[in-house]
């Protein structure tokens, strides 16, 4: 029973007692224990009122307060009126049953919603509960994360959560970032590096200097975003709100009409009235839009929760809806589709040399250089020539480098450099695009190293999955040359790209594409709402304007970057592009569940209204149409919360 709160336990008790009394009374009534006289009926009514009030006294109380406050269309009011109507018509058992099952339904509803709140809280379990602050005398006290001040020295023991963003001042070790990024590989942090709140410390003790107060740290920001996300409502949710606004009054008016009009028309008002009042009561029971009002936002809330457990922050239900309808995905190249740093892509060796040897010579010459291309070559070298053998390094900025390695003179540089040095270059067939670094030994060309910004692992797969999920075109934007762009695009399976763009051109390109989507959809607001959507993927640092122009701005690799979190609509905490098709899947599932719920609830309710008006559906069925449907819809929405 620990699964229930005290309040829920009390409710269960009330439901149980009332159910037992109700069953006894039903048996007694049908076995003819009560004579069908005035006295017998009154006795029966009084007895039935006992379980009625045991189970429903709070509903009646709320109804009375509601009348006082002029809140006539709330659930309690409608249920009370419907059951009193049933009592008035002599259907005592039905009246009690309706109240009983209404409360059973409410109980399940409350339990299911509470449960989903719980699982969302679990998804968000990254929030730290405490921090260990080290005082100047070296003593350590446990404090609330809210009490951390910038500059405090915090001790993080193995297995504890990092309480706020800070810099490691002592110790190094692996921290688990999975609560924030969904990434299961732990990250290595060393002295002088930043650690982010919400990460779980591995096996070593870390001393960290707090850089931010708890309210400003990464975890707080993320939690805030996810909470705020539910206030940016999707079109579907807004539809439900508007629907609820009209549905209840409409059904109530229909109920009143149903109670009075048919008996008036029939001519025999007194004889017919009771029957029609009972049918009108059925209407009142169905008139609450609860199934929709709870289950649709719950599905979106669950969707946002599911996305955040994968390290993707969706800043509003509306963006989740847009992600499900993506038509065009525009992506920045460098740092988004590619690693954003140079790597040796290919080596062409002259006769008599091999790739490893060429890299070894080049790395020797470049060892002291900080140029990104030099770094890539040095990184690619497995067995470098010892530093002691390298002398006479001469760096010609922007062109190349020469150095002596042992007795050999090595030259590495671009074509201009080799021309100046008078070293002859053979014709090289263009294979991989990138930057060509020519290498010469003792004045003779020995090979070419092609250095390029290589595509991220998984980028091609991610693009394929996006296309599979219904994205019609993926367009790559880059400031690089046409040649580089076409090679990277081909490698990633992207057919459309725009090269040689200045930063401000990217906004124009996205605006043009948006215009294209709009004109394809046709004129008018309605067509515009239905058009395909455009997402822009960037690193969130230099492309804030583009992120805001696009329907959905997605920032990648944003863990710890406030600017990116601020600018984007969807934030991917780590660097993994494959999160995008995953989150599109979540978005589709969310929308699918919402639509199922809407269709199911409306179908059952309208069927019951029609059957109720014809006298085929009784109040029992109406209660099912009300709370039963609500419970089923909520259970359906809870599928979003499964991992």
């Amino acid at each position, binding site marked *: 029973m620990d699964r229930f709160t005290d309040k829920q336990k009390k409710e269960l008790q009330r439901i149980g007692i009332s159910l037992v009394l109700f069953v006894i009374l039903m048996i007694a009534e049908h076995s003819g224990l009560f004579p069908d006289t005035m006295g017998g009926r009154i006795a029966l009514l009084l007895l039935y009122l006992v379980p009625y009030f045991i189970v429903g006294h709070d509903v009646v109380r*709320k109804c009375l*307060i509601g009348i006082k*406050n002029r*809140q006539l269309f*709330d*659930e309690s009011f409608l249920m009370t009126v419907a059951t009193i109507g049933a009592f008035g018509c002599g259907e005592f058992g039905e009246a009690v049953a309706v109240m009983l099952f209404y409360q059973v339904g409410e109980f399940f509803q*409350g339990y299911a*919603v509470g449960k*989903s*709140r719980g699982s*969302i809280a679990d998804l968000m379990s990254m929030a730290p509960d405490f921090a260990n602050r080290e005082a100047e005398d070296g003593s350590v006290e446990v404090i609330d994360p809210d009490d951390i001040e910038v500059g405090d020295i915090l001790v993080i023991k193995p297995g504890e959560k990092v309480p706020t963003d800070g810099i490691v001042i002592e110790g190094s070790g692996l921290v688990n970032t999975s609560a924030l990024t969904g990434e299961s590989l732990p990250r290595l942090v060393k002295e002088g590096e930043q650690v982010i709140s919400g990460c779980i410390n591995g096996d070593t003790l870390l001393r960290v200097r707090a850089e931010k107060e708890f309210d400003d740290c990464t975890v707080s920001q993320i939690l805030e975003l996810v*909470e*705020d996300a*539910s*206030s940016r409502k999707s079109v579907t949710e807004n539809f439900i*709100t508007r629907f*609820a606004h009209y549905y209840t009054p409409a059904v109530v008016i229909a109920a009143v009409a149903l109670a009075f009009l048919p008996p008036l028309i029939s001519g025999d008002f007194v004889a017919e009235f009771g029957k029609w009042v009972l049918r009108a009561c059925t209407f009142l029971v169905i008139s*609450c*839009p*609860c199934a929709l*009002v*709870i289950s649709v*936002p*719950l599905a979106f*809330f669950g969707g946002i929760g599911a996305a955040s457990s994968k390290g993707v922050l969706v800043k509003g239900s509306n963006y989740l809806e847009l992600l499900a309808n993506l038509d065009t995905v525009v992506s920045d190249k460098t740092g988004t589709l590619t690693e954003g740093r140079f790597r040796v892509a290919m080596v062409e060796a002259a006769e008599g040399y091999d790739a490893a040897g060429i890299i070894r010579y080049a790395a020797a010459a470049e060892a002291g250089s900080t140029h990104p291309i030099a770094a890539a070559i040095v990184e690619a070298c497995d067995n470098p020539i010892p530093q002691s053998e390298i002398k006479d390094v001469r760096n010609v900025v922007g062109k190349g480098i020469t150095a002596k390695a042992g007795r050999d003179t090595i030259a590495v540089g671009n074509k201009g450099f080799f021309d100046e040095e008078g070293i002859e270059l053979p014709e090289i067939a263009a294979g991989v695009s990138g930057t060509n670094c020519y290498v010469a030994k003792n004045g003779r060309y020995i090979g070419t190293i092609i250095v390029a910004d290589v595509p991220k692992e998984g980028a091609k797969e991610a693009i394929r999955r996006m296309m599979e999920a219904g994205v019609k075109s993926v367009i790559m934007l880059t400031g690089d040359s046409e040649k580089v762009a076409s090679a990277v695009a081909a490698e990633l399976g992207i057919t459309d790209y725009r090269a040689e763009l200045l930063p401000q051109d990217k906004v124009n390109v996205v605006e043009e594409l948006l215009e294209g989507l709009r004109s394809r959809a046709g004129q008018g607001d309605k067509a515009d709402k239905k058009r395909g959507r455009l997402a822009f993927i960037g690193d969130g640092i230099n492309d804030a304007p583009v992120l805001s122009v696009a329907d959905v701005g997605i920032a990648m690799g944003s863990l710890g970057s406030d600017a990116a979190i601020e600018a984007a609509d969807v934030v991917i905490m780590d660097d993994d592009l494959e999160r995008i098709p995953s989150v599109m899947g979540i978005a589709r599932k969310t929308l699918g569940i919402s639509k199922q719920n809407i269709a199911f609830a409306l179908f059952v309710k309208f069927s019951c209204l029609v059957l109720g008006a014809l006298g085929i559906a009784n109040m029992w069925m109406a209660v099912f149409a009300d709370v039963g449907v609500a419970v089923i819809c909520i259970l359906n929405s809870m599928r979003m919360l499964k991992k």
Partner: protein
Amino acid sequence: MKKKFKLVDLDCANCAAKMEEAIKKIDGVNDASVSFMTQKMMIEADDEIFDQVVEEAIKCIAVVEPDCQVVL
């Protein structure tokens, strides 16, 4: 100023929507939301009259759902 409040015993989603509607209509409120899922209310209003607005909002809540309490 923008501030969030926790709500206790907000038991009905439709009521949350009604509260939100009512609070948005209070003079001086720039934006407001009542979330059934997170059991939280957010009010954004001008600084000078903020406390007054919050009082009004609490009244709105009491009218819609008498059992619902605002944690200040």
